[in-house]
């Protein structure tokens, strides 16, 4: 029964694609004058785009893959992999236009750039890089944001549900948010500061994750039987690649190879280190032992938290932000246990809480190219509060609606037997290790 249905769905999906294509004016692509292109800036953003792609696959895929049980590792890795493929296509077909097309009432972009119409090799306004390069750099952000969410419903989401959810969430939540903050939307007009995605990427995915965890419910046996990570070195490998890629994510957001990029690079690195240290210390106090997973989690917390601030703060502020991040996120992860929902891989505690903290911290510590409260500009803090809360509400409400739609159409969870057997065999007819 089920299979033919999802076949149909795919067929329709493919048709849709080809439609867009044939309609698309971007068959051939207008050669840009490229007059104002700066080779150095272009070199750095080319590299940064590759780095952010590397964050999704293999980075995030392995970071998450190592944390699940071995019967679900392929299913978990698949989430990041297929989201990268699927959302990239959605982005070039429609997503980019919704996010960065000419502003419509401050809320979305027009469809002027659908199918990348009018996106060529000419310099992107205000930068020294080709428009196409700006588009693909932003594409990577769109992909990783959706992929981050998957950690909350790991080991139990139906694969068809994942596909549908990802497309809807990307088009209806991510693209509008990106427009609000970066595409000329109302939050940008307000002067909200989000250097590389503390709100657009981390708050949105982090609190979407919370809704997913609550709507899907806990994994079978959650709390009762132990579910230790099946391969922590894999998770550490993922951590290292995420960190590596994050330099492109944050320093690349300067959209050029300049002092601002260098400053963002330094802030990013310091916050990652401080996050790792402080999570470790906090855990050491509480449980009496420092753990490798704790350091890895702290590093990611530091990175998520510095993301919105990277370009606006000095190195010592970055150090503070990192130290706070590791402690706050650890606390959030510990408290989760009390709240009882099964955010399987702690997306809420790390990205949601981290992103929220970072947006507010930017309002306090901004000192480069903008002033935060501590530098005599209390107004900025208020703006940041609006940014954080608006993003959170939009993400929570939107995600809830999308989940309901997916539940009614293809259903959200795999059967209990399939969950027992594991996603790898039940969803993909594969085994990770032989």
């Amino acid at each position, binding site marked *: 029964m089920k299979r033919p249905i999802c076949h149909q769905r795919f067929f329709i999906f493919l048709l849709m694609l080809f439609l867009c294509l044939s309609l698309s004016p971007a068959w051939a692509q207008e050669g840009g004058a490229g007059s104002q292109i700066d080779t150095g800036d272009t070199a750095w953003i080319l590299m940064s785009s590759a780095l952010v792609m590397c964050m999704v696959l293999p980075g995030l895929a392995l970071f998450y893959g190592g944390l699940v049980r071995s019967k679900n590792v392929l299913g978990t890795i698949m989430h990041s992999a297929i989201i990268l493929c699927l959302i990239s296509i959605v982005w070039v077909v429609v997503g980019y236009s919704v996010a960065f097309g000419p502003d419509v009432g401050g809320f979305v972009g027009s469809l002027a750039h659908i199918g990348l119409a009018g996106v060529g090799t000419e310099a992107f306004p205000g930068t020294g890089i080709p428009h196409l390069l700006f588009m693909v750099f932003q594409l990577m952000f769109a992909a990783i944001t959706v992929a981050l969410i998957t950690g909350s419903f790991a080991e139990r989401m139906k694969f068809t549900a994942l596909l549908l959810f990802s497309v809807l969430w990307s088009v209806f939540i991510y693209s509008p948010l990106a427009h609000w903050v970066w595409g000329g939307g109302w939050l940008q007009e307000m002067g909200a500061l989000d250097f590389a995605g503390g709100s657009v990427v981390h708050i949105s995915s982090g609190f979407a994750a919370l809704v997913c965890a609550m709507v899907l419910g806990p994994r079978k*046996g959650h709390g009762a*039987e132990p579910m230790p990570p099946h391969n922590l070195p894999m998770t550490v490998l993922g951590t290292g690649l995420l960190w590596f890629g994050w330099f492109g994510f944050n320093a690349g957001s300067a959209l050029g190879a300049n002092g601002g990029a260098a400053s963002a690079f330094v802030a990013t690195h310091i916050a990652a280190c401080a996050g790792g240290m402080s999570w470790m210390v906090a855990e050491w106090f509480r449980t009496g032992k420092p753990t490798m997973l704790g350091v890895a989690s702290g590093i990611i917390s530091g990175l998520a938290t510095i993301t919105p601030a990277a370009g606006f703060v000095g190195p010592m502020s970055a150090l503070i932000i990192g130290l706070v991040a590791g402690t706050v996120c650890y606390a959030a992860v510990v408290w989760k246990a009390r709240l009882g929902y099964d955010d399987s891989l702690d997306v809420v505690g790390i990205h949601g809480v981290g992103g929220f903290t970072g947006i507010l911290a930017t309002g306090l510590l901004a000192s480069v190219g903008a002033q935060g409260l501590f530098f005599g500009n209390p107004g900025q803090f208020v703006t940041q509060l609006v940014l954080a809360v608006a993003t959170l509400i939009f993400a929570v409400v939107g995600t809830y609606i999308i989940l309901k739609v997916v539940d009614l159409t293809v259903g959200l969870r795999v059967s209990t037997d399939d969950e*027992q*057997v594991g996603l790898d*065999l039940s969803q993909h*007819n*594969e*085994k990770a290790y032989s």
Partner: protein
Amino acid sequence: MKLITTIIKPFKLDEVKEALIEIGVQGMTVTEVKGFGRQKGHKETYRGTEYQIDFVPKIKIELVIADELEQKVLETVTRAAKTGSIGDGKIFVSDLQGVIRIRTGETGEGAV
């Protein structure tokens, strides 16, 4: 002394262990095994090539007990390991000539 060997479904291990402890069993030895039987295995596909895997993962528990405990243990394991679906597993009973606890050199029932 008796050696009770039982083959069960992996996710039943904790339940069976707890049940055995309740009736006073103090030790057991567990091995990961692959079972072949009525329960059919699964299909795997790699680049379009399909494999039929006949073996299913099982857990083997070896249990040395005093003779008088035999019935109680058999009932307990049967109850705790049962799901009613094919593949629940088996229990095998055999005699033991002797048991030694290495640490103390104790033998017989005192050793388990």
